[in-house]
């Protein structure tokens, strides 16, 4: 049976991990390769790096970080943030990323998703969607680090990226992100039911119960979390044991 995945996310700025909520204040917290390895040892099913600066210098640093991390990791590594071209994707994969997440560029140039899936295989192309509640059961896609609205409906956009050849969706609720009050279950479930792609839920994890909820009620295939792991509130093992005791299949 396919297990549900627990994925710690590391925000990286100029080659260093920073803590803080994804869209707000930051403090530096160490070497991405070291932290990724620690999470791997704790039982993380995958690791995600998000380049939150996404400047050209930051990206150069990221290639090096990915190369060092890939050497030590025994689970897959996904890298996102500022990925805008086939060249970026190619260099990221060659540096040792197993998958690449595309967000803003996918909206601005949807053909990039198609071209990337055809060239590199759809299994390694993740489309990241940042969505914000704008009405009853209606969510709008935002880009540029959740700063710019696009007018796109999140469910329609999810179906569109599936057609374009994405292999997975990384879905972040802008409303829930950083609150530690739980994932947006309605949004997650709506997207998971709209597509036949695996959906990684992100934004709002504050405790193991939130993760349980998004994997069951929210119908997510994987749960991504940052803060609760970075600040040592819970270990990945804590979360997995909690899920296992409640009948959610996990890799222990």
């Amino acid at each position, binding site marked *: 049976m396919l297990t549900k995945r627990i994925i710690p996310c590391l925000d990286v700025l100029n080659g260093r991990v920073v803590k803080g909520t994804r869209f707000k204040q930051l403090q530096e917290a160490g070497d991405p390769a070291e932290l990724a390895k620690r999470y791997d040892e704790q039982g993380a099913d995958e690791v995600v790096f998000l380049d939150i600066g996404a400047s050209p210098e930051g990206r150069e640093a990221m290639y090096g970080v990915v190369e060092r991390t*890939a050497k030590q990791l025994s689970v897959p590594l996904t890298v996102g943030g500022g990925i805008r071209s086939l060249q970026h994707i190619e260099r990221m994969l060659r540096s040792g990323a197993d998958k690449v997440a595309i967000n803003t560029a996918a909206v601005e140039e949807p053909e990039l998703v198609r071209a990337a899936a055809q060239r590199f295989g759809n299994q390694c192309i993740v489309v990241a969607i940042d969505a914000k509640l704008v009405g009853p059961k209606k969510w709008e896609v935002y880009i540029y680090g959740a700063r710019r609205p696009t007018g796109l409906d999140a469910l329609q956009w999810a179906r569109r990226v599936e057609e374009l050849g994405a292999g997975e969706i990384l879905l972040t609720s802008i409303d829930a992100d950083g609150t530690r009050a739980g994932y947006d279950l309605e949004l997650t479930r709506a997207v998971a039911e709209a597509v036949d792609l695996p959906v990684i839920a992100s934004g709002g994890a504050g405790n193991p119960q939130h993760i349980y909820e998004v994997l069951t009620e929210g119908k997510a295939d994987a749960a991504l979390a940052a803060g609760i792991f970075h600040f040592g509130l819970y270990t990945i093992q804590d979360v997995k044991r909690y899920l296992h005791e409640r009948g959610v299949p996990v890799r222990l």
Partner: protein
Amino acid sequence: MVKVAILNYGVGNLHSIRQGLERVGARVVITDEPEEIERADALVLPGVGTLRGAIERLSDKRGAIWKAAFEDKPLLGICLGLQLLFDRSEEGNSKGLGLMRGEVVRLPRGLKVPHMGWNYLRVKRSHPIVRDVPSGSYVYFMHSYYVHPEDRDAVVATTSYGPEFPSVVASGSIVGVQFHPERSGEPGMRTLRNFVEMVGSA
């Protein structure tokens, strides 16, 4: 020290598989030169890229690969690399290398595809490639197609996702795994070690 050639036929992460093989004691070369293939003790067809791209880039290396297989050089296909070993694939209706009889088919509609994440093996028969990799071992999958060997004895282990599909196959000196051993924690490393040991004793 055994020398393993990883065939370079697609863009993707080849670091991890190289690293994995080196960690279990192999000398590794990443190449698409027929001469390098001849010089190596074993070949790995990695799980990166796309079927169409791989077939195009392999077109002038078929001879070298067939020769290696004919000489019973150990050959490991990973994910897409496993699928390439077969006669034909539903993906783009393409022809494979024909080193194993059978075809490659898509996972059924209605499932979330790709099959992405950790799932476990059911070992069906003993084989050096699954030594100390017991049933129930979790390994990492990322694929939309699976292999359907004509010879059911080739199936060493299976995994369930919708259908129960072959996740480890072996026939003579050829072995293939549908999962990514280089990204599958301890059981994955064990599989790579088993392959390198097979090469050493070949």
